[in-house]
C-alpha cells in the first residue's frame, strides 16, 4: 500500500472537516471502550491474564529462532510448506508463485494486515489473478478502492448510505429498485454476492492471528465465518503471517485468546476461532489439498532486541485505536498507511522509515490511555518518545521547534537568567492582559489562539513574590 503518512497534517485537516467521519468515529468511541470495560469487569482474572499474555510473548521473542524452527518442522511434518520471506517483494512472489502453480483464477481472501503491508491484491491483479476480499468491511473498501481505516473494523469510517451507494455502483446484478436502506439488506446483498465466489475460488488466502510452534498450526479469528469458508473450500490454503506471531503451545494461544476479543470488541470470544494444521487428511471429506505458510520478516528482525522490541508483542486487537483521542479525532486514513492509532504510530516508522512516518509519533499527547488498555502491556508512549529521540538525534525534527527548545533549555539551565527572562515575560503579559484576563490574539501565538483564548499570567512570578515575602521577614 502506498503511503501518505508524510502528509499527516493535510490528511488530518481533511479528516477533521469530514462530518460523516466524525459521526462514525463518535459511534466507535462510544461503543468499543464501554464494551471492553464491561467484558473486563465480568472476568475477575482479566488483569492477571494480561500479565501472563505479556510473559508468554516475552518468552517467545527471547527464543524466537528456536520457536520458528520448531514451527516449521511441525508444518512440514504435517505436509505443509513454509516460505521464508525477508521482504514484501519476496512474499508477493511466493504467494503469486503458489497461485500460478495452482492455475488460480480467483483467490478469496480473509482480512490480513500483512496482505495490506505487502500490497498483495495489486500484485495478484497485475498478474491476472483476481483477489476477492470476503470480510464484509474489507469487501466494501475493496469495491471503493480505499485502504482500511481500522485494523479490525476496516470500513468503520463509512455510513450505511455510503455503502449502499457503493453496492449500487458496483454490483451489476443488483436491481435498481431493491431497497438497501438497512444494514441487514446490505449484509444480505454482500452475502449473496460473495457466496458463489467462496465456492468458485481456486486458492484461499488468509492471515493468521497466531502461529503455534508446538503443532505447526495457524490460528484464525473472525466473527463472520469468512475465513473458514476461505480456507476450507478451495484446493489451496495460503497463510501469510509475520514471524513475531509465533506462540509456543496451544495453552499459550488460549491465554492470549482470552484477552484478545475482550480487548478488541468486548466479546468474551470471537465467534470463530480456528486452528488449521496442514492440508486435508487422507480420509477427510473436505479441506484443502495444499497448505502453505508464507512467513514474513519485513522489518521485524530489525525491531527485535532493540528499542521497539516490545512492539512485537502486539496481537492486533485494536484496543489502542479504540481508546486513542487522536484516532478518535482523525480516524485511520489520516495515518496514511496500513496501521493506525498508537500501534500504527509506533510500527509505521519502523516498517517504512522515520522520514516517511515522522509525524505519527509526534501527534500524541502521551496521555497513556493506549498503554492502559493494551492487553499485552506494551509501553506505547515510551516507544513514541523513542522515535522522537531518534528524530532529534538525526536532526529530523523541525528547525524552528529545535531552536525554541534550545532556547528554553538554555534558560532552564541557568536559574538566575531564567528568573530574569520569565519575570520580564510574566510582567509584560500580565500588564497587557490584566484588564480582560485573557488574550484573544497573541503575536506568534496563532496556533493556540485560533481556537482558544490565552489566559493572562497574574503578572509576577511565584519565585519573585516568595523570595520578596521571605526577605521581608515572612515565616
Amino acid at each position, binding site marked *: 500500500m502506498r503511503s501518505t503518512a508524510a502528509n499527516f497534517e493535510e490528511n488530518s485537516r481533511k479528516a*477533521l472537516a469530514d462530518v460523516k467521519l466524525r459521526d462514525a468515529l463518535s459511534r466507535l468511541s462510544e461503543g468499543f471502550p464501554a464494551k471492553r470495560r464491561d467484558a473486563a469487569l465480568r472476568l475477575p482474572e482479566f488483569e492477571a491474564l494480561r500479565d501472563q499474555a505479556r510473559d508468554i510473548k516475552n518468552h517467545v521473542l527471547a527464543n524466537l529462532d528456536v520457536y520458528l524452527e520448531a514451527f516449521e518442522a511441525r508444518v512440514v511434518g504435517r505436509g505443509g510448506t513454509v516460505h521464508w520471506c525477508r521482504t514484501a517483494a519476496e512474499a508477493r512472489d511466493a504467494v503469486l508463485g503458489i497461485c500460478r502453480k495452482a492455475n488460480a483464477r480467483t483467490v478469496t481472501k480473509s482480512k490480513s494486515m500483512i496482505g495490506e503491508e505487502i500490497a498483495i491484491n495489486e500484485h495478484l491483479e497485475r498478474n491476472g489473478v483476481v483477489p476477492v476480499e470476503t470480510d464484509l468491511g474489507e469487501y466494501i473498501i475493496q469495491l471503493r478502492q480505499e485502504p482500511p481505516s481500522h485494523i479490525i473494523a476496516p470500513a468503520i469510517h463509512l455510513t450505511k448510505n455510503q455503502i449502499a451507494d457503493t453496492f449500487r455502483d458496483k454490483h451489476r446484478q443488483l436491481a435498481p429498485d431493491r431497497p438497501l436502506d438497512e444494514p441487514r439488506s446490505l449484509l444480505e446483498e454482500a452475502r449473496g454476492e460473495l457466496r458463489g465466489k467462496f465456492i468458485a475460488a481456486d486458492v484461499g488466502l488468509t492471515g493468521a492471528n497466531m502461529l503455534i510452534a508446538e503443532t505447526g498450526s495457524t490460528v484464525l479469528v473472525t466473527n463472520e465465518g469468512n475465513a473458514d469458508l476461505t480456507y476450507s473450500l478451495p484446493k489451496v490454503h495460503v497463510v501469510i503471517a509475520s514471524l513475531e506471531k509465533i506462540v509456543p503451545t496451544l495453552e499459550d494461544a488460549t491465554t492470549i485468546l482470552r484477552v484478545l476479543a475482550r480487548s478488541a470488541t468486548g466479546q468474551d470470544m470471537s465467534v470463530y476461532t480456528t486452528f488449521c494444521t496442514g492440508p486435508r487428511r487422507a480420509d477427510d471429506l473436505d479441506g484443502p489439498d495444499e497448505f502453505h505458510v508464507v512467513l514474513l520478516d519485513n522489518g521485524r528482525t530489525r525491531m527485535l532486541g532493540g528499542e521497539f522490541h516490545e512492539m512485537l508483542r502486539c496481537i492486533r486487537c485494536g484496543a489502542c485505536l479504540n481508546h486513542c*483521542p487522536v484516532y478518535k479525532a482523525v480516524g485511520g486514513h489520516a495515518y496514511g498507511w496500513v496501521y493506525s492509532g498508537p500501534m500504527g504510530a509506533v510500527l509505521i516508522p519502523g516498517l517504512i522509515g522515520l522520514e516517511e512516518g515522522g509525524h505519527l509519533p509526534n501527534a500524541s*499527547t502521551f*496521555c497513556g490511555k493506549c498503554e492502559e488498555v493494551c492487553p499485552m502491556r506494551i509501553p506505547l508512549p515510551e516507544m513514541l518518545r523513542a522515535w522522537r529521540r531518534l528524530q532529534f538525534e538525526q536532526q529530523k525534527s523541525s528547525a524552528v*521547534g529545535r531552536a525554541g527548545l534550545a532556547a528554553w533549555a538554555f534558560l*532552564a539551565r541557568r536559574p538566575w537568567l531564567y528568573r530574569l527572562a520569565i519575570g520580564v515575560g510574566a510582567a509584560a503579559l500580565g500588564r497587557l492582559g490584566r484588564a480582560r*484576563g485573557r488574550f484573544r490574539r497573541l503575536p506568534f501565538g496563532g496556533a493556540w489562539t485560533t481556537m482558544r483564548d490565552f489566559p493572562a499570567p497574574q503578572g509576577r512570578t511565584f519565585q519573585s513574590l516568595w523570595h520578596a515575602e521571605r526577605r521581608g521577614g515572612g515565616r
Partner: protein
Amino acid sequence: MSKSPATTPVRVGLFVTCLVDLARPSVGFAAVKLLEDAGCVVAVPAAQTCCGQPAYNSGDSGDARAIAAQVIEAFEGFDYVVAPSGSCAGMIRLHYPKLFAADPALATRAQALAAKTHELVSFLVDVLQVDSVAASYAGTVTYHDSCSGLRELGVKAQPRALLNKINGLILREGRETEACCGFGGLFCVKYPDISGRMVDAKVDDIVATGADTLLAGDMGCLINMAGRLSRRGSPVRVRHVAEVLAGLTAEPPIGAAPGEDA
C-alpha cells in the same frame, strides 16, 4: 485540618513548576498553605526552573538530563518534594530514573529523589493522611483527571475525597473526566487542529455537567481548557484544585478578568 501535628516537622521542598511560577503564583501559595497547615516546613529552592519534560518529550535527552541533574541537586536534601502538578511530579518520579539508567551515580540519586516526590493532593491524602480541609466553597464543581497524575501517579480518588468534604461544594462527575484535554505540552501548538478537537470534546463534557467550576491539578490542562471555555463564551470558572482546597479564591479564576465573576 483534622490531623495531629507531626512530632518532627516534615521538610518539604516545593517544586513550584514553570507554569505556576510564570502564570499563576496563587497556586504556589495555596500549595504552601496546604502543606504548612498539615504540619510541614516548606522551602522553595531558588535554583529550580523546569522539570525538563519539554526537552524529554521532544527527544532531547541531553538537555533533559542536564535540567534533571539540576533538580536533583536542588531538591535531594528534603524529606519530600511536592509539586502542584501530576505532570512534573510524574516526570521526576517515573522518568528521572530512566534518564540516568546509564549513569550509576546519578541513577541512585535520581531513584532516591523519585521515591520521595509527590503530586500535591496525593501527598496530602496518601502520605500525610489529611482527610479534610477547613475551606468552604459555594459552587458545583467538576474535576478533570490530568493524564500524568491519573495514569502515572494514581491520582483519582484523593482530590475527590477532599472536595467532597468541603462545605457548600457539590461535586458533579463528567462522563469523560479521564479523557485527555488535548494540551500535551508542545502537541497543542504542533497539531493545533487535533488539539482543538480534543479540547472541544472536553468542554462539551464539562458544560454538560452543569457545573459552574472546573478544577484540576495541572496548569497546562487548566490553561488549555480555560482558553477554550472562554472562547466559547462559557461562564464556567476554572481554578487549580489547590486554590479551592486552601480556601484561597480571592484571585480571579484562570482567564477571567478581575471582577468579571462573582
